[in-house]
């Protein structure tokens, strides 16, 4: 869920504000994220959504998916299919998502596992750029900070959007069992390193002035590599990224399904079809640069609220009231 949407672009906004300090800013936020994961693991039994918070999350996730689809379409039409109509891309993309969503829930989860080897392939491609990297670009740290330096911390949270799913899905994964801390640490290190590496590569590859002009730095790095076995490495990665993004959307819809229907229906086909149609129609009208630019700046506040703050508030309120999941069974 965390590797799809923002991975190709968040480096741009983060480095524009944090400059060389972006690596430190990201590391600080990554540690906050880890502490939150530990908090979620300890307190997940207190995470209960009432009608109001449920509606808030459903609206947020729906908007998130719409932005997701708009961005994917924009990237595809810019990098791969400049002449293909947006509506065709959206229809095909969402049809595949719909198929995965009406299948068994395990299907959606397992597709992500199948894609893991792709991650290694991607890293191998990225390492081909090493001869063009400048280590001196990472320094100096904490020197001549911009007025908007603090925004670097804010935009670092982009990488951890979707982390609320941990506490949402926790009760369905292991009932009354603790997840080993070692597993949490491995997960945290993997996700944080993956994102940190992308920031380091972007900083070392581009000059600061140049980063401002490149909205998708990772794609651009791959675009600039010349290999003998394929003409455009960026296309290769876009298809990998497209698959990750698809899995992320399917997982979001799965959670929406679990929260909205509270497991009362096995596979609500018609409702999901309507949902995807609405998402598709809205996205078709919004695929434009100005809309994306708006969300690129402001969506992060939604992430801070719904991923970091609201789950903590909900847990604390329920803890004070003494309400736990076990009292309500496994429904939220």
């Amino acid at each position: 869920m965390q590797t799809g949407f923002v991975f190709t672009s968040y480096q741009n906004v983060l480095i524009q504000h944090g400059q060389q300090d972006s690596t430190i800013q990201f590391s600080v936020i990554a540690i906050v994220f880890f502490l939150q994961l530990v908090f979620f693991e300890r307190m997940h039994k207190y995470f209960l959504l009432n009608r109001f918070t449920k509606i808030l999350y459903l609206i947020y996730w729906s908007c998130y998916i719409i932005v997701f689809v708009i961005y994917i379409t924009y990237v595809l039409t810019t990098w791969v299919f400049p002449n293909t109509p947006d509506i065709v891309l959206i229809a095909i993309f969402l049809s595949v998502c719909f198929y995965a969503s009406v299948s068994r829930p395990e299907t959606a989860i397992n597709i992500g596992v199948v894609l893991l080897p792709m991650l290694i392939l991607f890293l191998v491609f990225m390492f081909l750029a090493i001869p063009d990297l400048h280590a001196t670009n990472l320094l100096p740290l904490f020197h001549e900070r911009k007025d908007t330096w603090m925004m670097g911390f804010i935009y670092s949270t982009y990488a951890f959007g979707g982390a609320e799913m941990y506490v949402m899905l926790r009760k369905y994964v292991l009932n009354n069992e603790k997840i080993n801390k070692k597993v949490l640490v491995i997960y945290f290190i993997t996700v944080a390193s993956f994102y940190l590496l992308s920031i380091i590569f972007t900083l070392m590859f581009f000059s600061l002035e140049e980063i401002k002009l490149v909205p998708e730095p990772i794609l651009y790095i791959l675009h600039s590599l010349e290999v003998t076995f394929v003409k455009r490495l960026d296309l290769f990665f876009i298809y990998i990224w497209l698959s990750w993004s698809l899995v992320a959307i399917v997982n979001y819809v799965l959670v929406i399904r679990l929260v909205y229907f509270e497991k009362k229906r096995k596979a609500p086909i018609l409702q999901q079809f309507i949902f995807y149609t609405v998402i598709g129609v809205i996205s078709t009208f919004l695929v434009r640069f100005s809309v994306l630019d708006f969300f690129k700046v402001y969506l992060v506040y939604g992430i801070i609220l719904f991923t970091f703050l609201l789950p903590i508030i909900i847990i604390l309120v329920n803890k004070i009231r003494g309400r736990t999941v076990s009292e309500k069974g496994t429904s939220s």
Partner: protein
Amino acid sequence: MFVPLLLVGCWDERLYKNSSVVSLTGFEGEMGDVTAYYAYPEATTTEMKTIIIIGKGMSPRAVRQNAELKVEQTLDLSVLSAILISEDTAKDDIYEYLDIYFRDAANPITPKVAIIQGDLKPFFELSEQKVTTAGEFYNRFITSLEENSMVIPYTLQTAGSVLFEQAQDLALPYIKMDEDKPMADGVALFSGRSFTGETLSSEQGLLLNILNESLGHAARITYLYEESPVSIRVNKSKRNISVSEDKIEIVQKIEVVVTEFPQDHLKEKQVREKLQKFISEKIEKDMNEVMKKLQEAKSDAIGLGRIVRAYHPSLYKKDWNDHFSTLDIPIKVEVEIVKTGILY
């Protein structure tokens, strides 16, 4: 999941048979009155020949539109291998001419770039007689210069990146026409985004590569030593830089292999040390001349600014080009002969 892959067969299908696949392009003139050349191969039943199309217009994009009027198929730059830029044009902001290559994802950003002395036309006409594609010829030509450490290796992307870097300047291959054949004439020095008009010779280009730590497969230098030749190949080089307020001291340690020395007897320590001293002094003198030229041209082609900015940020100035030209930058060279071939 892979259904979108099939879409390339619909709206975005691009077949080579329907395109004029340009491998070499170049431009001259100034913004508002640009002339561009496009070279693409055309195969007949008996031979493959190179077609040259000339376009005129107010900008690189307009020029391409103009050139499209003269071809029966769409110009396709997806396999572009080299870009040649006239030296007069390069004296403008060069990025203005390159923007279209970076902006379109279908364009490759790995072609080689070179600055051309004089008119571009003869360089394109020459490619008409080549068996390989025109772009491939110039790409191999420049790659060969890079492998021989005559020029700093740059692609369109890495060159473009340096154009946006305040702490380093560009140095591109400088090519001239010599008896109807292209010949490398050294390195064109840039200051900011413009060609300064100053060039380094090919020999100085090699020393620039040593200073920049961007040596190719071979870096050979020849001197006359006691009226007899001595040739060396640079095996390894390492620079140590110390920075103070108005001074940057460079100590360049170079390990060399002797590849030509008819006087022989390098086994004798005295002979070897004397030769090492001679080569060190020669290279040191030449390198200091290179640095003087760089400073006169306000062109920090070896990226000293990157080091000052990273490790001594308080000494780094925003107008780095001007500041660089005022610094005292002595270079000290220490050469060590590490191999002598199969003879002493």
